[in-house]
């Protein structure tokens, strides 16, 4: 018998707390596989956010620091400046990164911090129970936007990848989705390139991952992926916005 697939060493054996159908688990696996395949797992230090992935420090099989809400890029900056030879990454959701933590992510990119950020955009606050995020789509219902997000009242959703791609220090910027096997493969390729950019000391790198939240969106896992495809991808176009030359 040949082993064609096995769980990556980059994840611990602790069962995750994520809801059925949530795509955090997929992204955790992709990140962990990339760490292992690039040979940086034993050299990696991760920073977990506040939000659904607050417990990520349990799941990644490397040194981990649990940060305050939105502050992961600042914590990662401190770690990386002391340990320039370690691989340092943050894993953050959209409430964490795109709302309370905008200053920290913008300035980590602005300084060209040699860290990598995995940014989960599921257009909602998951952990706190489905409140509106800066990434919630116009018309999308949330517990703090019960009539649907109004553009007049709170503007159009923030496009984080496009915003960060205007910053020179952000040397790798790509938006991916994990709604089907083909996109999951592309997401892994993007995460790997993003990580390679840090290994090559190019600057800051971020992969925005469009993810689903069946629980708070109120869909079945399959319908949630369909909703992501039909509503999120048209507003948040997939693709690479910046790649440093040697990583291409």
């Amino acid at each position, binding site marked *: 018998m040949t082993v064609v697939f096995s769980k990556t060493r980059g994840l611990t054996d602790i069962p995750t707390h994520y809801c059925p159908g949530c795509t955090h688990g997929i992204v955790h696996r992709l990140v962990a596989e990339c760490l292992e395949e690039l040979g940086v797992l034993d050299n990696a230090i991760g920073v977990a956010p506040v939000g659904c992935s607050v417990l990520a420090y349990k799941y990644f099989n490397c040194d*981990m620091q649990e940060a305050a809400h939105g502050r992961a890029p600042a*914590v990662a900056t401190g770690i990386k400046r*002391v340990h320039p030879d370690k691989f340092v990454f943050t894993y953050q959701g959209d409430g964490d990164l795109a709302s309370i933590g905008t200053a920290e992510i913008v*300035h980590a990119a602005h300084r060209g911090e040699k860290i990598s950020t995995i940014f989960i955009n599921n257009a909602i606050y998951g952990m706190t129970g489905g409140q509106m995020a800066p990434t919630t789509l116009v018309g999308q219902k949330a517990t703090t936007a019960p009539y649907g997000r109004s553009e007049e009242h709170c503007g159009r959703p923030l496009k984080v990848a496009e915003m960060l791609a205007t910053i020179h220090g952000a040397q790798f910027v790509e938006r991916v989705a994990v709604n089907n096997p083909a996109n999951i493969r592309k997401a892994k390729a993007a995460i790997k390139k993003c990580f390679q950019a840090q290994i090559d000391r190019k600057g800051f790198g971020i992969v925005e991952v469009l993810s689903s939240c069946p629980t708070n969106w109120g869909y079945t896992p399959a319908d949630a992926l369909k909703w992501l495809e039909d509503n999120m991808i048209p507003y948040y176009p997939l693709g690479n916005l910046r790649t440093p030359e040697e990583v291409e």
Partner: protein
Amino acid sequence: MGRVLMKGTEAIAEAAIQAGCKFFFGYPITPQNEIPEYMSAHLPEVGGTFVQAESEVAAIYMIMGGGATGHKVMTTSSSPGISLMSEGLTYMAGCEIPAVIVNVMRGGPGLGGILPSQADYLQATKGGGNGDYNLIVLAPSTLQEAVNLTQLAFELSQRYRNPVMMLADGFMGQMMEAVEIKPYTDKDIPDNTTWALGYMEERKGQKSALKSLYLSPEALEDHNINLQKKYALIKEREVRCESYLTEDAELVIAAYGTTARIAKTAIANLEKEGYKVGFIRPITLWPYPYEEFKKINENCKGILTVEMNSGQMLDDVKIAVEGKFPVYFYGRTGGMVPTPKEIMAKVKEIYGGEK
């Protein structure tokens, strides 16, 4: 390095470097800007790194990340900036991450002013951030002491895996005095590779996860019990205080930092006029030297607390004297400074007029 004339902020910065601090993250705010400026110039000379953060919020989390590696890291700020950092202080205390924070206090509340003050005593010693935690808080009253306490701050933060704050009023930052700054050798420091980030190899593949999150109430209570055990140990071992004449004083002045220095001048002048005034100067504001007040003789008229605020240390003095003596207060605020003359007048008022 012999004795040299230095500005307080620069002396604090050089003392930190001589204590082995190689990483500084900070944000500009008056009156302490010379510290980040000095660090940006001199840390590269010792193979260290200075990063100017985008805010005090980011600065405190940069030292949280840096401190999580077990290395000596520092940030400095002034009152409004420390308010912004308070979230990070409780996270660091909860994660047991060592770091040194200097607050060169200015007058408040709010934006206040930029002149010297001691109005952050309660914020530093009783919290500021959420939850049951304590910072070790050191208050220098001369620049040489600011140098010595800066270096001690690194040792204590490493020994107890706890953030240490040096609470320096604006005078400690802005005045010049002769100081001697020597390289500092730590005593009784544990091996950080057992817990710090980036040493999985030294731990033979064992990961380390630093966090203050405990979702189960039993686990969070255990964590709090452990923290309280550590704080009890610090209270037992690390109280520091200067005092004199408490055994036969007619009145005792309690003061810290620059105000303590001014009080000393007042006490010396009063002695010439026949007043026997004792002196207690807490050097550690947390843990507080409550025991020192037990040495005060029972015929003492009372304790006069002198501060550059509206009486923030009063409650600690009242706790310390356990109702045995009346506690009086004289303070100035907003950057105004109590003069020896004003303190002497207050002492005479307590005596009920000239002797």
